[in-house]
């Protein structure tokens, strides 16, 4: 039953084709993974990676092609079927019940070894065993809502292993992790590989892919470009395979004269959702033509910082100034009208209405201004025109402007939000994790746009957990730790080591 380990020696996907309306998501893709191997899957946003994997997990069914497990052709009807065959999948959005404990979540939907009586003690023991074997540290008795993102992911992995997964699909598992958590995950993955598990790993971070995979397959526009062994490949080579052209991994960051103070926080404090102090006496100034990076380990007040500026979270003390005006009491809409743009961290949750079309989401911030609406009435021609203009200007890949936004790939949703926010030529831009889960081509593009805004005199607050991103773009770097600004370091004096120490809360001794 649950405790037996199935084994998958090889899994092959042969000439898989999958169509969506207006999109050929997978075009005769051939892909295979073996037991004891980590096979990385790379590709731009919308290249068809998730679609290919969802067919393996029974969420979609191929239009053509064949799946073979250990040489036997199989049809995978549903996720239940996939699990029965030893295939597990960790989605980017976790599928856990918040109110239940870790053990209850793991046991959910599984028969109890005591018939109608719960066997949570046995489940807990087994979780302990798994977590020891693979370094997956969690407390089986903890309710899921108390867990951090990294811990929740470990619960998902344990859940899959508990169900006897011999092959594990991880769809962008590191997108939500801090660098430290990602390192822990890699230790686990390597351990699983040693044990003979087959692993498929999707990521946009080339560094990670090169670090842990045995083979690498690249998809582009739904087709397989190539599968290469991870020997002698460089990040630049992979980037070229993904995008089909050379990609700049470095950013041209010209020194600029900075102007007046556009955004100022003076002694700001605020509470988080649970009522604890999340920001303590934060003072920051961002000038026109400047990018101020905010570095820090996630959960140290970054989200609250962005929300306080956007007007989505009340201040517990201090003030926020836009262009020299105290806007502390202004509602979000008024701040937007005063030239503030905000790229929220939770793009699916805060940034768009998933059911709306691309065009409707593109006017979410100025639906009540001409020409988008006149008086009470929306102007559909203007909405369509704005949609077409921004889709082409920002290179958003979508079958049409009337496509529901939820069917776009993550990177394209991010481009949509960027298009909406930047097209207003904001004076102040707050960008929270703007390239999380975004492919390198689009990341390059977004970075260039942010630098363009800077050149045009926008004041940008860039909140990111990706140090490379901060070091590439920011003029000055503020490090946040437990809601306090530890220090603000000019770009020239910033090194990964120095920032790392500050991020860990170690203040510098003169």
């Amino acid at each position, binding site marked *: 039953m649950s405790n037996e380990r199935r084994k998958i020696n090889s899994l092959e996907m042969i000439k898989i084709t999958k169509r969506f*309306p207006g999109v050929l998501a997978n075009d005769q893709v051939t892909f295979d993974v073996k037991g004891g191997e980590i096979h990385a899957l790379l590709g731009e946003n919308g290249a068809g990676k998730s679609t290919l994997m969802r067919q393996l997990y029974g969420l*979609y069914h191929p239009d053509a092609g064949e799946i073979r497990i250990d040489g036997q052709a199989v049809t995978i009807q549903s996720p239940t079927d996939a699990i029965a065959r030893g295939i597990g999948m960790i989605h980017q959005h976790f599928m856990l019940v918040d109110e239940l404990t870790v053990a209850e979540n793991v046991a959910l939907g599984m028969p109890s070894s005591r018939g109608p009586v719960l066997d949570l003690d046995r489940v807990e023991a087994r979780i302990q065993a798994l977590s020891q074997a693979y370094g997956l540290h969690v407390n089986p008795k903890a309710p899921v809502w108390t867990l951090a993102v990294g811990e929740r992911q470990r619960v998902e992995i344990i859940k899959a292993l508990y169900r006897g997964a011999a092959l594990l699909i991880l769809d962008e598992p590191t997108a939500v992790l801090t660098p430290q958590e990602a390192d822990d995950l890699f230790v686990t993955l390597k351990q699983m590989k040693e044990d003979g598990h087959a692993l498929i790993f999707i990521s946009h971070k080339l560094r990670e892919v090169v670090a842990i995979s045995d083979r690498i397959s690249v998809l582009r526009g739904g087709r397989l470009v190539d599968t290469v062994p991870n020997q002698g490949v460089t990040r630049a080579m992979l980037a070229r395979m993904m995008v089909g052209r050379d990609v700049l991994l470095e950013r041209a960051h010209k020194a600029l004269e900075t102007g007046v103070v556009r955004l100022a926080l003076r002694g700001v404090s605020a509470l988080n959702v649970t009522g604890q102090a999340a920001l303590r006496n934060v003072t920051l100034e961002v000038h026109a033509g400047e990018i101020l990076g905010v570095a820090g380990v996630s959960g140290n007040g970054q989200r609250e910082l962005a929300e306080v500026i956007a007007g989505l979270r009340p201040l517990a003390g201090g003030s926020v100034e836009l262009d020299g005006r105290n806007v502390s009491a202004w509602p979000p809409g008024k*701040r937007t009208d005063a030239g503030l743009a905000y790229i929220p961290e939770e793009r699916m949750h*805060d940034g768009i209405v*998933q059911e709306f079309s691309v065009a409707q989401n593109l006017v979410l911030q100025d*639906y009540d201004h001409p020409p988008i*609406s006149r008086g009470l009435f929306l102007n559909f021609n203007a909405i369509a025109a704005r949609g077409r203009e921004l889709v082409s200007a920002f290179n958003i890949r979508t079958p049409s402007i009337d496509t*529901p936004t939820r*069917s776009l790939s993550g990177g394209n949703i991010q481009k949509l939000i960027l298009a909406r926010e930047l097209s207003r030529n904001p004076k102040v831009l707050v960008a929270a994790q703007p390239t999380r889960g975004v492919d390198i081509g689009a990341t390059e593009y977004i970075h260039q746009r942010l630098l363009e805004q800077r050149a045009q005199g926008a004041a940008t607050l860039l909140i990111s957990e990706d140090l490379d991103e901060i070091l590439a773009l920011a003029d000055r770097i503020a490090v946040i730790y437990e809601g306090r600004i530890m220090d603000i370091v000019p770009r020239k004096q910033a090194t990964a080591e120095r920032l790392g120490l500050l991020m860990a809360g170690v203040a510098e001794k003169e």
Partner: protein
Amino acid sequence: MARFLRSPRFLEIALPIAAVLAAFMIGGVLLWLLGANPFEAYWVLLGGAFGSVSALAATLTKMTPLLLVALGICISYRGGVINIGGEGQIIVGALAATAFALWLRDLPGWLLLTLTLLVGALTGAAWGAIAGVLKARLNVNEILSTVMLNAIALQLMNFLLRGPMLDPEQIAAGTNIAQSEALPRTMWLLRLAPPTLLHAGIILALVLAVLVYLLLWRTTIGYRIRTVGLNPSAARYAGMPVPFYVALSLILGGAFAGLAGAVEVAGVQHRMLEGLSGGYGFSGIVAALFGKLHPLGAIPAAFLFGGLLVGANKMQLTVQVPSALITAINGLVVMFVVASEVYVRRARRRTGREAAAASLQSDAAPVTQASTF
């Protein structure tokens, strides 16, 4: 062909019809158990609902309040709230409309009628506003508050119709039937097909259906209501005052139910009496669901359910079965419609045509929001 039969576009239309047929089949079994011949019963029902000019007129008359209530339900649903308070809102709307019309009975008829309908709608809106403000301010569950407001409205009616608003003629005759004095003839809604009860309210309801459609999909107010309903945090981020629009969704829902009450008074009964609300507050929800919570979809849905109500009465008289059976069939229809929604979504995933179907549906979000994966 087989492919076409399984395509979401076809299923979208075929399944609700299949749901109705399935509900009728089970209803047929119930009829048979009650000792009636189901075929005969249904034949009578059909004839009673749609079989003659007078039957159609009766159906359209019942359709009017159903459609009005359903329109309110559509707005509330789009704003992300569920209004179970139709009954209470109809009652207070009808009470206020009656009191108002009797009070200002000497005004010119057209003016009095217009104002009376307005008063009905405003009173329903106020009744909805109680639930709306409680929800927006204190996050009180609107399903509970609207249900409780129904009970309060009912007691209020019992008190008023037996006390202050009791018809003086009833008092004089000593019969004391709980009903109000009749409204002045000058303000009655125009009868469209005498001697049937069909009145001009149906035209008003149809016009309003189109206006509600325009409101929801063509105006900034509708855009805000739908944004708030689909994703309140994105709405907040876009600078929309979310609590206001939550309350507004319930207020507009109440306004339409209140108007339905006033229209029943001015068009059918010409006075307020017990039982005027006729369960429309609940059947209207069924009609709205069947119409996929779209104001234009509510038109055929209200017509169908209006017909069922009329036909059921006829069936009760002729075949001697309780018309409550129709209530059971209504419930079955809802169950099958909701179940078929899930089926359509599965089919869509199977054929991978989610986006196509979703764009078809983007104007009519699925009734059930259960996540499938």
